């Protein structure tokens, strides 16, 4: 990271030292105030969790950790946690495999590939809730295309998103439809910035396509793909729009994820304390997972910086205990933009 201490810059006009030292703080003050303005309601919400505050109970009393023991001991939480994790793992896996596959196919730069590449990001620009609406219509047995397509390939008895399994399956499909392009464009950027020489050497050595992919392409591409995987996995843990629009958490509670659950508690039934307790549990989990993933990303990128030819511009590693959730360093492409 190219940082210069203010003192290292010879100044044309003579400004007193204390004003130079103060400058970055002045520049950052509005952003800090905004953070405080967002964090204030968050802490207010954390305070809700030790009360029994709801629309029906506007004069709440202190209940200690009762909300947590209640919710941690309920099937509701564990069911929605299982649904959330299953959704996140399934969607992220499908998107990663498909996205990397599409990137490899587009990288060949055939005429067809160049034409289609322009259309790659179309689904990505559709609002998730609109994507859910579109797919809801496509999946309707009496309106959409899914039933006739399935009938054409000999699958009958299709009933839309009626069953629990079908509802989950199609939620993953919609998420994959929307976000596979996200993984694909990051992977494609990575592929196009990989150095040539290792591949030429592999070709000279007579390595076949699969060996080249396994031993060269994938390891070198991993820092790029990992950024996409982390973004997707973290987003899937808080999925709301796609599930709400497609199944509203149903049938029954088959697709009720943690955020859908908290929504029902806090907004539909106006039980603020219980909803907030749900969310705090989810938030802690998200935070912990992001911390682990980002540490791993930092290690991967540092290793990549060791073997790649390109210079790596990175932010200094977060101090231990600093809030995490960021790509620790920037993966520097070799500038083919």
């Amino acid at each position, binding site marked *: 990271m190219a940082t210069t201490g203010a003192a290292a810059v010879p100044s044309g006009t003579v400004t007193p030292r204390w004003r130079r030292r103060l*400058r970055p703080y002045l520049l950052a003050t509005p*952003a800090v105030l905004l953070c405080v303005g967002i964090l204030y309601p968050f802490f207010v919400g954390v305070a809700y969790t030790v009360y029994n505050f709801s629309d029906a109970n506007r004069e709440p009393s202190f209940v200690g950790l009762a909300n947590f023991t209640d919710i941690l001991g309920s099937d509701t939480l564990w069911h929605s946690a299982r649904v959330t994790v299953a959704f996140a793992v399934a969607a992220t896996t499908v998107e990663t495999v498909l996205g990397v596959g599409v990137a490899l196919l587009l990288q060949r730069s055939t005429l067809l590939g160049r034409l*289609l590449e322009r259309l790659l990001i179309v689904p990505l*620009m559709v609002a*998730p809730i609109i994507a859910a609406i579109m797919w809801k219509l496509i999946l309707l047995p009496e309106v959409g295309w899914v039933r006739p397509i399935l009938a054409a390939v000999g699958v009958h008895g299709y009933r839309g998103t009626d069953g629990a399994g079908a509802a989950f399956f199609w939620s993953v499909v919609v998420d994959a439809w929307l976000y596979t392009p996200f993984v694909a464009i990051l992977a494609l950027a990575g592929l196009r910035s990989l150095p040539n020489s290792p591949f030429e050497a592999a070709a000279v050595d007579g390595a076949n396509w699969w060996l080249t992919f396994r031993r060269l392409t994938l390891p070198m591409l991993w820092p790029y793909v990992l*950024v996409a995987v982390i973004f997707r996995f973290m987003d899937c843990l808080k999925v709301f729009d796609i599930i709400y629009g497609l199944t509203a958490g149903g049938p029954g509670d088959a697709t009720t994820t943690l*955020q859908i659950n908290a929504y029902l508690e806090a907004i539909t039934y106006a039980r603020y304390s219980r909803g907030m307790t749900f969310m705090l549990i989810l938030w802690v989990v*998200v935070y912990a997972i992001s911390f682990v993933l980002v540490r791993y990303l930092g290690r991967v990128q540092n290793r990549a910086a060791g073997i790649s030819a390109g210079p790596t511009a990175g932010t200094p590693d977060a101090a231990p205990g600093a809030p995490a959730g960021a790509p620790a360093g920037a993966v520097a492409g070799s500038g083919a933009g």
Partner: protein
Amino acid sequence: MTMDRPGKAGGILADAALLLYFAFSLAPVVFIVALSLKSNADQTSTYLRFAPTLANYRTVLGLGAGDSPYLRFFVASLVCSVGAVLVSLVIGIPAAYAAARYRFRGSESLLFTLLSFRFAPELVVIIPLGVLYQQLGLYDSYVGMIWVLQLVTMPLVVWILRSFFTDLPPELEQAALLDGYSRRQAFVRIVLPLVRPGVAAVCLLAFIFAWNNFIFPFTLTSSHAQTVTVSSLAFLGGNQVRFNLVAAGAVMAVLPPLVLALFIQRYLVRGLSFGAVKS
């Protein structure tokens, strides 16, 4: 880089696989556009053989008989998204520049706090904010929406612009200072023009994400500040569902972000990865 080329058969297989993926990727778009052009009689019948009509768009926009609230939702989306982007720019540009050019106490914490907003589950803020908004009279208001949309736009603006600023050699400003420019002049006349394409791309990307947001207007507005994403879903919930109208509304809600995306293709990789990947 080059891969050793598979044979001709491999090439045909690869093209077929590509076509298969893009069929899956684009069919829903074709379907929804077709459905939006169908008359009431056609909407549940034959699939692609029909006489297209613009009647649904006229109905949604209230151009025919009857009155449509859709334009009001459109305006609300526009005001909230543009407002959110402007506030993020005014607050975010100085912060991004400070984070790129200085090391100062708390700069890391500020950056990571902003990034944690991007990964935080929205309801963690919405639940208390909903209660506070009711008390403050900000519920269902533009101001309330613009404030909460900072969660979406602000991390994007600061992180991406910081990556653009760090790409510029600091010698540029040093040279300007030696020439007698003040710090402010150096920034406005030298630095800002160089990152202008980046700023424009960040603006459009932040606008797209604000426009596409659903959970904030869904939970914190009821009518006055309700946006197109919320009304699109409300169309589906009517007692007498007109699928072709729902489709027309959906197409119109998707058009602005889709058109804007055409202008930022170059910066999309960097933008979507918060500056972590540069192409």
